[in-house]
Every structure is written in structure tokens, then in C-alpha cells.
């Protein structure tokens, strides 16, 4: 479905389908004029948000979907990824030292990557139920909120 500046798609809660959302976001970013390296950043961030929604949000329940909305504005692309789950209890910053030493599980990098690769991100409950991850990536701004 597409309005003038918006594309929506829904993917099954099955691992691997995140690549469809990833490629869709990449196509839009390319059309907007993003640089190749920023498109790669966006692809990883969108894939990880979808994976979180599939695995942690929807618990890989085949009867649920993940909704992705891409909104184009003049100088930015906003991507919302919505699941039908109960939300993230807490967001921990992973430390590789702990994972290497076996103190923490080796997984848990998705949110870290999203935060590192886009300009703005929020994780919120959705008004209609479920959770939504909203990411914004600016057309010309470089990574790093400190400028």
C-alpha cells in the first residue's frame, strides 16, 4: 500500500523475511539519494528491528505479522516496525568482554546495532497493541548524535 510518501508492507513472523523489508528500505533510500554506506547502515538497522519483532515480539508465531512503514520526508526516511507482542522488558547494552568470558549470552546485539546505525530510534508500545520501533535516518547527516 502506498500514499504519496509512504510505503507499508507486512511480513510473516518467519526468520528470513526481514530481508524483504531490508531491500524495500534500501530501494527507497537509494531513490532518495542516500550514500551507499548509509544505505548499508539502514539495511542492517531495518533487518535487526524486523528480527526483534519476529523473534522477541511475535515469538515467531506464524499467525502474526510484522508491519513495516516507510515514510519519506524531504531530508529523512522514517521506518516504523510494528509487532503484536508484549514489549521489551529492558534494553541492556551488550559488552563483548562479558560474552567472550561466558558471563552473558553471545546474542543480544540487535538493539545495539540499530542504535549505532540510525540517527534517531525509539521503542514504544503501539496505541493499537504491540510494540513499535521507530527509526529515522537523515539524508545528509552523518552517524553520531554529537555531530
Amino acid at each position, binding site marked *: 500500500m502506498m500514499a504519496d510518501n509512504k510505503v507499508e508492507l507486512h511480513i510473516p513472523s*518467519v*526468520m*528470513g*523475511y*526481514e*530481508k*524483504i523489508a531490508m531491500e524495500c528500505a534500501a530501494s527507497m533510500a537509494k531513490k532518495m539519494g542516500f550514500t551507499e*554506506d548509509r544505505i*548499508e*547502515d539502514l539495511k*542492517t538497522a531495518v*533487518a*535487526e528491528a524486523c*528480527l526483534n519483532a519476529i523473534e522477541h515480539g511475535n515469538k515467531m508465531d506464524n499467525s502474526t505479522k510484522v508491519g513495516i512503514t516507510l515514510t519519506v520526508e524531504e531530508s529523512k526516511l522514517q521506518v516504523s516496525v510494528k509487532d503484536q507482542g508484549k514489549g521489551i522488558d529492558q534494553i541492556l547494552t*551488550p*559488552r*563483548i*568482554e562479558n*560474552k*567472550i*568470558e*561466558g558471563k552473558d*549470552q*553471545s*546474542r*543480544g*546485539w*540487535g538493539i*545495539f*546495532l540499530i542504535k*549505532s546505525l540510525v540517527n534517531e530510534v525509539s521503542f514504544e508500545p503501539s496505541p493499537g497493541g504491540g510494540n513499535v520501533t521507530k527509526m529515522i535516518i537523515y539524508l545528509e547527516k552523518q552517524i553520531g548524535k554529537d555531530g
Partner: protein
Amino acid sequence: MNKEIQVSLSQKDDVSILNIKGDVTATSGEAIEEAYQKVSNAGSKKILFYFDQDGYINSGGIAILIGIASESRKNEQRIRITGLSAHFQKIFNMVGLTKYTEIFLTEELALKDF
């Protein structure tokens, strides 16, 4: 939906090379773990991971590689990596994998003085 992974093994002098084609994810990563275990059990102390430049690597795949890096420390092995796109070189650096492995631009450079 993911590109099926193919992991093949080769040997150059005392370096075991894992040639990895396809997507590296939590599920496909098992093939990498198996290949690593195989060379590890054979006593290899120098292991080169040769990735596909066009491959997709997600956080689940990164976790598999962190697990291998952890095990390689216990086994006193050295791990080098090549074939990564510039983006995934950056990602590996972000998560800290470069503290425990070394990334090289080419296979030739990776094998030099290993």
C-alpha cells in the same frame, strides 16, 4: 528466504581456511560452528574465516562468531578474517569482534605472517 550457507575447508601451510558463502545467521551459523569444530579438533591453531563480500550477516550470525572467538581463546587459537564488505568490517569493529580477531582486506594479507 535466506541464501543457503556453504562452508568449505581448505588448508594453506598451517592455516585452516573456512570459505563461507551465503548468509550468516543464527541458524545458518551452525554450519560455521561445525566447520570450526572440525579444524579445532584437528589441532589447528591458526584459522582464517573467508567471508562472501555480498553475504548478509545479522546479529544472530555475529553471536555465533562471538561464540567461536570465545572458544578460540580457550583453545589458544588465532583467528583472522577476510572477505568482509566495508560495512561488515565496520559492524565487527562496533561490536568489538576486532578485539579478539584480526580483519584483513585480502586473503594474501591475511595469510602473511600468520
